[in-house]
């Protein structure tokens, strides 16, 4: 609808006695017509404003957030979980300790559990109510039985709700409902901003006058003249220009709002809309988010002085920004506390105590009250990537994620517990970390830690810290080489010797080993497990930088990869989640599996929006990947990752790779067991140097995590076309098991050495060999 731009003016009949009698009829005709036109325009304009304001208001009210669920726990004989882990899972899913016979309760004695489930409507069918009994022994479920309800060898518990999000918004809001807000907040708000909120009809001419008086008395602005309703309208149309026209529009809209809606609705919407700060391009709207942003706390837990500070900021969020102008904010806060006291909201003792407290804002701004902010962040990005926006606008969606609470718990603990031990002094303060954990064969993201304070929603390093990956690239160089079995095997001698590259423009590049030593010829598997730089660069140049780049892309790297030879030492930058994506293919014998956080999204009626199915895509020869996995296991047993076994039981077979960049700016470790793949990064946000390497920074975090999760060791199935042989790599020959220098190594059929060396191993040693294992 087009609107005329003339200012609407209320027609006022002001009978004027004109001395010019002759003109009277003409003049009145003209006047009435003009007034009628004005009146019609005003009515039309009001109808237009009414439509604008109600649609705006409706869009902001009673928005129901999407419910986000963790993955449901599956219970069956053989399921791997510790008793402590099961108890935590039950509590997260809302089970109470009790007799285990009423639905929603459980009983535990030692490792024996009796659980009464409530039943749950899953997207793929209903899980009925049941009563279960089981024992946990050696971190595994045993003697699983259904005591009552439909029998089944496998039962899903109802999933824990891990957060609520508004998927169609660009950012998380934290919407609050009036009844869950501490009563002191609206009371203070009215005392300071709009004393007659419950009595006026949208605008309050008297209070404007009163505010002016109060401000003159105090010598500064203590009260505003706008009602809360007017402020809300102003917030809807965030413009700073305060023209008379806008003020008029605001007044009309305020009156209209009051005509349509209850005071409580207006107040609640105000609490969720008011502008309370700015973080870069993001505005902080609503007291719920402001409470997180300034105090890192939930609104319902705020104390008197905190409520006073937030209410005080309504006047001017940037002027009274407590992080930037603490003194100014403090003064303003204390003024509000006095107002509270004067209005009888708090007694003088509480007021005095509140005035004596520091401003108390948190060091870093947090943006979410979700318990797993880094993980939820990835869920949001996957929603935006994979779902149509109009589907996400529907209210009250249910989002079923892949988060595994027990594993998330172990991941958070590994980061918070290890990081302070890695350094001291300033470096310790500056150290940050990220940890990504996925299910090896399904690509489901089980846990995500985005920083050293996992509960805090700030910078998400798992997704947004793009850092050079260093030696993490080496398995892909050697994989590219081993895919040519006629040229490369695990025992091919590679040269650990320095060299210089001359570029066309006269620049020279001279790569070095981390320990600056040179070892001459070493077998390929050792070059990888000990992470020597020089052979990796030589092999990479030999197979071709372009081929290595293609391998990385096949394994799911979509970001730009430089074609300079320095990429062979990992100058290419990636975030930890991308590294996990890339290592997924190595962990699953050459199948790229897209990482997922979402299993299903349903509307409130339980209708699925669309399903995310498991996908696999063979991107490399399983035989060549098996060889790389061998060398990565060697890394853990003899190479750069061997210190992991200080923390880990030696029965747990693992494969992995360290990565370090210049001056210890980035410390990486990526590795996998039979069940899990985990990628850890440790470094500083300012990209400053540390004294850490991959083995001394990220590996301890990774090992501590792995040590706290019961799981299967890695034991890859030998793929078709691979055979294990005893070889002597020095002589490039097959040999006998009991010879010196004999090593059992997988070889791709046809690439075996064609010579055999026998050895004169002592008789004693041969006898020992024959009977090995007999007497243990």
């Amino acid at each position, binding site marked *: 609808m087009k609107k005329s731009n003339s200012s609407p003016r209320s027609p006022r009949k002001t009978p004027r006695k004109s001395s010019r009698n002759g003109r009277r009829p003409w003049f009145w005709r003209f006047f009435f017509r003009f007034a009628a036109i004005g009146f019609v325009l005003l009515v039309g304009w009001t109808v237009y404003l009414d439509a604008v304001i109600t649609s705006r208001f409706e869009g902001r009210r009673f928005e129901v957030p999407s419910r986000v669920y963790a993955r449901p726990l*599956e219970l*069956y004989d053989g*399921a791997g979980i*510790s008793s*402590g882990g099961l108890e935590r899972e039950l509590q997260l899913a809302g089970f109470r300790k009790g007799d285990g016979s009423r639905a929603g309760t459980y009983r535990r004695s030692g490792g024996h559990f009796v659980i009464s489930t409530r039943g749950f409507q899953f*997207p*793929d069918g209903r899980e009925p109510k049941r009563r279960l009994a089981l024992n946990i022994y*050696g*971190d*595994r479920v045993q003697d699983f039985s259904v005591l009552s309800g439909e029998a*089944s*060898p*496998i039962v899903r518990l109802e999933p824990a709700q891990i957060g609520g999000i508004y998927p169609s918004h660009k950012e998380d809001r934290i919407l609050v409902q009036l009844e869950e807000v501490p009563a002191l907040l609206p009371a203070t708000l009215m005392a300071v901003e709009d004393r007659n909120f419950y009595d006026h009809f949208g605008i309050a001419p008297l209070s404007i006058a009163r505010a002016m008086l109060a401000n003159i008395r105090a010598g500064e602005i203590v009260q505003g003249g706008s009602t809360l309703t007017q402020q809300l309208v102003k917030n809807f149309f965030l413009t700073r220009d305060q023209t008379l026209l806008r003020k008029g529009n605001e007044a009309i809209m305020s009156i209209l709002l009051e005509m349509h809606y209850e005071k409580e609705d207006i107040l609640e919407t105000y609490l969720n809309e008011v502008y309370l700060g700015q973080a870069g391009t993001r505005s902080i709207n609503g007291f719920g988010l402001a409470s997180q942003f300034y105090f*890192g*706390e939930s609104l319902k837990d705020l104390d008197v002085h905190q409520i006073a500070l937030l209410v005080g900021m309504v006047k001017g969020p940037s002027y009274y920004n407590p992080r930037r102008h603490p003194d100014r904010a403090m003064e303003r806060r204390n003024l509000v506390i006095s107002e509270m006291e004067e209005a009888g909201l708090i007694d003088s003792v509480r007021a005095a105590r509140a005035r004596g407290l520091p401003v108390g804002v948190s*060091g870093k701004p947090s943006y979410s009250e979700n*318990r797993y902010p880094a993980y939820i962040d990835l869920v949001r990005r996957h929603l935006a990537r994979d779902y149509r926006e109009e589907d996400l606008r529907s209210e009250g969606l249910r989002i079923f994620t892949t988060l595994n609470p027990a594993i998330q*718990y172990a991941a*958070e603990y590994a980061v918070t517990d290890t990081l*302070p*031990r890695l350094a001291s002094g300033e470096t310790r303060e500056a150290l940050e970390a990220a940890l990504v954990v996925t*299910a090896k*064969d*399904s690509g489901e993201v089980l846990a995500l830690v985005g920083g050293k*304070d996992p*509960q805090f929603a700030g910078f998400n390093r798992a997704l947004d810290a793009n850092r050079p990956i260093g030696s993490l690239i080496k398995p892909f160089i050697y994989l590219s080489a081993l895919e040519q079995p006629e040229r490369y095997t695990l025992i091919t001698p590679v040269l650990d010797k320095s060299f210089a590259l001359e570029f066309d423009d006269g620049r020279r590049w001279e790569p070095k080993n981390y320990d600056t030593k040179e070892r001459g010829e070493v077998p390929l598997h050792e070059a990888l497990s000990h992470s020597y730089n020089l052979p990796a660069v030589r092999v990479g140049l030999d197979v071709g930088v372009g081929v290595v780049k293609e391998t990385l892309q096949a394994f799911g790297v979509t970001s730009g990869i430089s074609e300079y030879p320095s990429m062979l030492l990992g100058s290419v930058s990636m975030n930890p989640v991308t590294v996990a994506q890339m290592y997924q293919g190595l962990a*699953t014998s050459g*199948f790229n599996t897209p990482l997922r956080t979402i299993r299903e999204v349903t509307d409130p009626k339980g209708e699925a929006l669309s*399903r995310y*199915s*498991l*996908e*696999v*895509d*063979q991107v490399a020869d*399983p035989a060549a990947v098996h060889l790389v*996995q*061998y060398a990565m296991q060697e890394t853990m*047993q003899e190479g750069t990752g*061997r*210190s992991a*076994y*200080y*923390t880990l039981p*030696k*029965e*747990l077979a693992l494969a992995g790779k360290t990565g370090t960049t210049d001056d210890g700016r980035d410390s990486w470790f990526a590795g996998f067991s039979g069940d899990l793949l985990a990628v850890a990064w440790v470094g500083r946000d300012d990209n400053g140097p540390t*004294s*850490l390497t991959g*083995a*001394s920074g990220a590996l301890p975090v990774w090992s501590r995590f792995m*040590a*706290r999760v*019961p799981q*299967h060791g*890695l*034991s*890859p*199935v*030998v793929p078709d076309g691979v055979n294990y042989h005893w070889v002597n790599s020095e002589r490039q020959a097959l040999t006998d098991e009991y010879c010196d220098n004999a090593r059992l190594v997988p070889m791709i059929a046809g690439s075996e050495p064609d010579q055999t060396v026998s050895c004169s191993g002592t008789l004693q040693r041969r006898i020992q060999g024959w009977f090995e294992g007999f007497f243990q």
Partner: protein
Amino acid sequence: MNTRFLMSAASMAAFLALAGCASSPGESIYVPIGGDAPRAPEPPRTTGEAEQSTVWRKSEQPEASEPAEPSPRSTSPSYRDSGESLSPAALSLIREADNLLAQGDASGAIARLERAQRIAPRSAEVYFKLSEAYVASNNLGAAEQFTLKGLSLAGNDAQLQRAGWLLLADIRRARGNVAGADQAEQRAAAL
């Protein structure tokens, strides 16, 4: 749905029925964490929590330089010749999926099979079944990939290998890849 598929599906079903009662060839080693680890600290609610300045005991000190050798591991890199068998729980989900497939509910079957895949991620049979469900829902591309994944886990089990190669041959032929199909059939014949 041509009869060849039904044939390989039937042979697969017969095979899986056996798998349930076949003796399991050594499973992957499951490593418990040994007792309950101490409770992690409660999530920090406010700042000002005194951080304990813990220092690694010397014996735990991970060093960048040559660390003292940890207790020598007698093991060399681990591998296995045979794939992993299905647990009864996974098998029951596969049976449910079979029933759903028989009723023509391929997406319901896929949901069950994905549950089975999560609890038996290293058994070839689950992937062959997924392949079968994708054939039923006319997504031959996914079916081929799941067959390949199953084959990578079949190990030295000739019967399972053979079933997998024949399934792959059928899918490739249906996709018009005759050369690939012939190749897969030769692999099956060579077993």
